[in-house]
């Protein structure tokens, strides 16, 4: 067995085993078995790190691919296999998933202490980790879809973990159903690819697409359908509505699933299937614009939210929009790089907010304030993450966001029509800095607005703060990947399909022209600083009153505060339509069907004498006949199974005689 193959097996096996042990025996183990999943994910992390360094440092080859596949079964002409596809992107994703997952596991030891169903929580976490790792490691569309659904299920279970709360139960249903809408498109997309190409394996599909086996409008539709899956899972407009509600789940879950890993699965999928996506420029534009809309409009919503987790949720939606836009304009490396950096700092922000919530027992920022002194570790680590997401130089977010902006500027410079993409993202970057610092100022600075809560607040235990510090470190050093053309930029490049595509792939990446690069960098620093300054003036110095501004522009404020009424819009349209249709059907039953019955009544009355006779002799007769037949079958079967052996033997004799007779005399006649 090859080393990579062995590593992949080990990485997958530990969480799966932990899930099985935990779900069946967790309750009976000491400490409710929480150490089993934690130990398992740490083992996965260990082997993940080995894999990462072997691939990134050891191989150090942009075109490195390791593939192994095992036959599963063949259905007609289709061969269903499963296997591993390991390249640089896989290695990076494995690192992200195992690191964030282990950190969240450890954090949960403190955060979930004493909750009901403590053991089950860890079982679900293991199931999720396994599914996500499978999603990253698998080598074909079939397994991709299976693991795609598996992460969906585990997300459903974890969002609804507090299932006795109505809001949580509603949220998990909403998340599941909304993402299903995207999944259906994803499934159609996979079916289209398989229908035209007849293969599931990534490499074979890519080669077939490169050879033009799937082209034209069919390809465009297939790609848009595939992208539909990403829209659902990565909470892109217009299916983003589930993610803010998903914050009903425990905070570690929000950090793991709804910030760092599962929501990034959509982006990862687009990246993984990039050779198919990039074959259709029209579909790529759809991707870019959906991303842009999401990035900008989620950022504007985040400005006015008061629930700390909801701010972070909309921020996540917005950042996912950045990644999707990057992939849409062809900046493969930049988009996936942002995926990695974002995973670290957003997980950190969520875990930090969890720490705050743990201390003050509320999600509402207006009830917080002045927590800086009480919770120094939480404050400093969250500040680092905030600097990173705002795109301040020397933090990880700067490198990745700058790369995205540069790529979109370059895209805008070649196609002037698409300049709005760059402008929207740039403005969005400013807004991001503004609302993130708003969060910091409202939570940690100023005077304590609710002294009672403030007095009880305390720094969280080490099991929670150590993960914060680890992630804070990663949020800083994660940025070095792109500086000076270090490994990420060099290694994570679009896969090369055949020789012909080799030159085409060269132009992509985050290099860009010098003008685009430095221009974007300068502008992005400018906008980030602007956002931070504005936030400082409004929420720290109170030079500008937020209420006054809100009062001046009530329309804009309400649009943002009510999230553009998208939920209400769906309630009034899609859901209302379903409910209306249900009413229509009920009415159809009531009015039309019953009406027909009522209308025919007089007519029937006219012929009632006939009908009476008909009923009596034919209908009743039929009903009675059925009853008689059923009874007879019962009677016959008891009669047959009389328990008397002579009887049985006689029946065998009769049967043999009857068959012989039937065969020789009756069948012969026909």
């Amino acid at each position, binding site marked *: 067995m090859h080393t990579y193959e062995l590593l992949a097996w080990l990485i997958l096996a530990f969480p799966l085993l932990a899930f099985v042990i935990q779900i069946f025996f967790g309750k009976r183990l000491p400490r409710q078995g929480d150490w089993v999943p934690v130990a398992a994910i740490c083992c996965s992390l260990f082997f993940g790190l080995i894999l990462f360094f072997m691939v990134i440092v050891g191989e150090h080859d942009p075109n490195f691919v390791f593939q192994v596949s095992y*036959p599963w079964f063949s259905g007609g002409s289709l061969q269903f296999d499963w296997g591993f596809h390991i390249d640089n992107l896989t290695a990076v994703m494995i690192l992200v998933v195992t690191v964030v997952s282990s950190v969240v596991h450890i954090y949960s030891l403190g955060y979930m202490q004493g909750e009901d169903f403590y053991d089950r929580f860890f079982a679900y976490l293991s199931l999720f980790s396994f599914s996500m790792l499978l999603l990253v490691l698998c080598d074909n569309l079939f397994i991709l879809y299976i693991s795609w659904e598996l992460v969906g299920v585990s997300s459903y279970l974890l969002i609804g973990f507090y299932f006795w709360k109505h809001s949580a139960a509603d949220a998990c249903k909403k998340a599941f159903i909304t993402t299903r809408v995207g999944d259906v498109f994803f499934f159609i997309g996979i079916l289209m690819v398989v229908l035209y190409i007849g293969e599931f394996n990534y490499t074979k599909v890519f080669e077939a697409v490169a050879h033009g086996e799937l082209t034209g409008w069919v390809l465009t539709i297939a790609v848009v359908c595939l992208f539909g899956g990403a829209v659902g899972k990565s909470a892109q407009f217009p299916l983003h509505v589930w993610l803010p509600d998903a914050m009903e789940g425990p905070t570690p879950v929000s950090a793991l699933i709804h910030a760092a890993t599962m929501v990034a699965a959509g982006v990862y999928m687009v990246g993984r299937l990039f050779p198919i996506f990039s074959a259709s420029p029209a579909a790529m534009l759809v991707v870019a614009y959906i991303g842009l809309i999401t990035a900008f409009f989620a950022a504007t919503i985040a400005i006015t939210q008061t629930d700390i987790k909801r701010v972070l949720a909309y921020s996540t939606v917005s950042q996912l929009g950045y990644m999707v836009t990057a992939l849409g304009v062809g900046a493969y490396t930049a988009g996936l790089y942002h995926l990695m950096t974002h995973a670290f700092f957003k997980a950190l922000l969520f875990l930090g907010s969890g720490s705050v919530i743990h201390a003050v027992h509320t999600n509402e920022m207006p009830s917080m304030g002045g927590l800086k002194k009480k919770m120094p570790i939480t404050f400093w680590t969250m500040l680092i993450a905030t600097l990173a997401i705002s795109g301040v130089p020397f933090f990880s977010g700067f490198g990745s966001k700058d790369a995205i902006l540069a790529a979109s500027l370059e895209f805008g410079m070649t196609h002037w029509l698409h300049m709005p993409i760059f402008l929207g993202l740039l403005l969005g970057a400013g807004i991001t800095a503004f609302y993130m610092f708003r969060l910091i100022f409202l939570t940690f600075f100023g005077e304590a607005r609710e002294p009672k809560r403030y007095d009880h607040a305390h720094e969280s235990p080490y099991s929670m703060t150590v993960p914060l510090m680890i992630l804070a470190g990663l949020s800083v050093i994660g940025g070095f990947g792109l500086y000076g053309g270090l490994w990420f930029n060099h290694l994570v490049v679009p896969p090369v399909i055949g020789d012909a595509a080799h030159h085409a792939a060269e132009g992509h990446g985050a290099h860009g022209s010098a003008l685009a690069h430095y221009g974007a960098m300068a502008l992005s620093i400018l906008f980030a600083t602007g956002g931070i300054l504005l936030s400082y003036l409004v929420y720290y110095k109170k030079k500008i009153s937020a209420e006054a501004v809100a009062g001046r522009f009530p329309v804009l404020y309400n649009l943002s505060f009510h999230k553009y009424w998208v939920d209400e819009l769906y309630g009034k349209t899609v859901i209302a339509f379903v409910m209306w249709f249900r009413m229509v059907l009920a009415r159809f039953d009531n009015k039309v069907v019953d009406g027909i019955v009522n209308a025919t009544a007089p007519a029937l009355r006219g012929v009632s004498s006939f009908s009476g006779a008909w009923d009596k002799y034919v209908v009743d007769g039929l009903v009675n006949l059925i009853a008689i037949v059923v009874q007879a*079958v019962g009677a016959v079967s008891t009669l*047959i199974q009389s*328990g008397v*052996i002579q009887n049985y*033997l006689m*029946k065998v004799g009769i*049967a*043999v005689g009857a068959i012989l007779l039937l*065969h020789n005399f009756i069948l012969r006649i026909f």
Partner: protein
Amino acid sequence: MGNVESLSYFVPELILTVAILIVLFADMFGMERGGFDLPGGAALLGSILALISHVWLYSQPATMLFEGMIAHDMFSAFFRGFFLLCTVVVTLMTMYSMEVIHLKKGEFYSILLSICIGMCLVASAQNLIMIYLALELMSLGSYILAGFSRRIGRSEEASLKFVLYGGVSTGVMLFGLSLLYGLTGSTDFSAIQQVLISSEKGIDLTAFTIFLLILVGVGYKIAAVPFHFWAPDVYEGSPTPITAFLSVASKGTGFALLIRLFYSTLLTRSPAGGFWVEVGDIDIDWTFHLAVISALTMTIGNLGAISQNNLKRLLAYSGIAHAGYLLMGVCLLTDVGLQAVIFYLVVYLFTNLAAFLVVIIMVDTQDEEGMNGVRGLWARTPIVAVAMTICLFSLIGLPPTAGFVGKYYLFVALLQGKLYWLAIVGVLNTVVSLYYYARIVKAMFFEPTYTEEPIRVHPVYAGLLTALVVPVLYFGIFWDSLARYARYCASLITY
């Protein structure tokens, strides 16, 4: 091949023979003392050794043994493995079962092993005399074992019914065999086939009568309608390990007998390959006749099961229904059909033995084989409840269990054979069967139990149950290896 050379191919049967002697000898040293079942251990060891030597014989090419009396081909090898595996499992079941705690357990094992030899010979016989002798060897043993719990009245009753019913059925079958001999003047399969190929027109009636009379014997073994009457009574009355053995191994023998005898005398392999056709000028639609029997068997089996409350009786009817499903594959007379049958038999082996093991656990721990025993089982012993659920799902044919794949192959074979009406009957029957299997699942998980007291399952039973259930799941997900194996085994020796 001559007699002496043939012995090297006969190692598993020889090992079993030696094991029988050792078991009888071991029985003389009282087993009560140490508590360990010495004869049982010997029988277990013997059957496992036989199984190992059998696997070792696998790679040998197909050939005729003992001057053409029996054949060594993939088909017989498959069934030998099937029966040996069954014997190992049933021996283990018996060793720890409370039902057959009996001073004369040594007799029990030695009879079990001789039945196994008989079964192996049925699957490989190439001669009418041989096949009849082998059949009697296994039948006589089965009669004794069915009545082994002599203290219980219904066990005696079961045994007596079994003897009478079996005696008449095999007698009728013997009449069929003698007609076949009379028609062709030979007891050797290849000679019979040669004579029939060159026979003149006008023997249709004789051929059909022979077929029908043989079918009485075969139908009795596999419990096919209208020869199934004994099954519910005997299954209910016998000690449960024997019921398990009858429902799997005995049924398997019936199918081995049917395929071996029918496919190599009245049928001949088509030169086009892939299917069998009538020999000579005989013009009878075998497929139709067998298909009707198949449809009747599964329908009556499933309808009968609906109102049963005794689990053994219910599983008896379910076994009748499964004989019907298996006949769907046999009646096609194609390679694909045979492969499906072999695949399904393997699935059936694991699933049914596991289901009966659950019944044994019920009987041993609470002396209850009715629906009452399984009520609320989930709360009392979750592992057994989950295992039983998997078995029942497999019997229904739900994914991801092996039963689903087995049914899938059967239906694919039916569609390829263009026997659409039978496929529809089969699907409808599956739906009916859902009702009574799901009733057990419902009772286990959702119905209140009369006591919350947990059931302590013997560790050997727990291990055995796991060992039987894991393949059911495994082959439900990774069935390709088993499918390839079935394709490999579905080849009879041809002349």
